[in-house]
């Protein structure tokens, strides 16, 4: 491995950005594997905290890479991680956007689109699993997760309210 954390940050996130079908939610396990286990940049709890901060921040959830980058190497780390995570995929999006409409009815296009849905579903489910293992350290946290899952599935409530209640429950000292 390289000794400069900036090089590793860039390499890992640039590669990840090209395989993260399903967006930030699908990329969480790989980020966790790299940041906590392979490179040991942060602890499990710091990773879970970064996830929480990214969730309550406005903007795309992928912004968790900015937090990881900052944790590893300050402002340059934040800039490098964000650029690496967004750069390659933006170039791909730009190029594909120009030709995509032409192949609207093409059979291969429909097959690619249909084929990637279950892959991204599996990846997002893996994210939920990995995060639940980090977050649900006791029965109360697990109950919050379970109740929130039901509410999220059954209603269209603004997530901000759910985060507020979750944060207050955490503050109350149950977790």
């Amino acid at each position, binding site marked *: 491995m390289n000794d400069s954390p900036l090089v590793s940050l860039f390499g890992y996130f640039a590669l990840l950005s*090209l395989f993260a079908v399903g967006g930030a939610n699908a*990329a969480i396990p790989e980020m966790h594997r790299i940041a906590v286990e392979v490179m040991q940049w942060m602890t499990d709890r710091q990773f879970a905290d970064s996830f929480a901060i990214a969730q309550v921040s406005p903007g795309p959830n992928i912004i968790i890479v900015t937090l990881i980058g900052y944790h590893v190497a300050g402002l340059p780390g934040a800039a490098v991680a964000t650029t690496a995570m967004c750069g390659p995929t933006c170039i791909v999006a730009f190029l594909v956007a120009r030709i995509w409409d032409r192949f609207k009815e093409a059979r291969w296009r429909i097959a690619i689109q249909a084929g990637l849905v279950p892959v991204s579903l599996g990846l997002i489910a893996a994210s939920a699993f990995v995060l639940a293992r980090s977050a649900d350290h006791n029965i109360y946290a697990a109950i919050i997760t379970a109740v*929130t899952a039901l509410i999220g599935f059954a209603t269209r409530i603004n997530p901000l309210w759910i985060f507020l209640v979750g944060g207050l429950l955490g503050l109350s000292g149950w977790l």
Partner: protein
Amino acid sequence: MSAAAAPSPTSVRPTLSELFRAFAVVSVSGFGGALPWARRKIVDQKHWMTAEEFNEAFALSQFLPGPNVVNFSVVFGSRFGGAPGAAVALAGLMGPPLVIVTILAVLYARFGDLEVLSRILAGITAAAVGLLIAVVAKMAAPLFRKRWDWAPLIAIAAFIGVAIMQWPLPLVFLVLAPVSVALAWVTR
């Protein structure tokens, strides 16, 4: 949200500065997913796209690797303003959140060890994981409702590979995606 009341075909074309401002507003309003805000702004308020065009562009953004909303800003921006349009929309989407999250990162580096903060974040994480499970359930419902099919098997394989075996994501993807696309091809 009145997406159904989409008016006539789009003839309004945004300027570059309008693009920037629209995506900046969307990004800071979009707690927990910017999609509904993007739809409201682009379809309902500005009439830059019809609801169908929006869905089409967003489907493409979801299928591409990487963050969906980021892809969407590039797809949308390039349609109206080429490369400069894509750059401006992306800058609008990422600029304000980056400033905010950088401030939060600095604060966390300083106060992350505080007991109170870590308790609050633990509560938020527990809730956020629940919401993620709800997303998974909503995505899985149509996939698993169908008759016996290959799609759930692929999803389960991806889950086991990444969550249980903890294999690298690119590896799992490179094995499963071609298989899945091939199955989608032959079963259609």
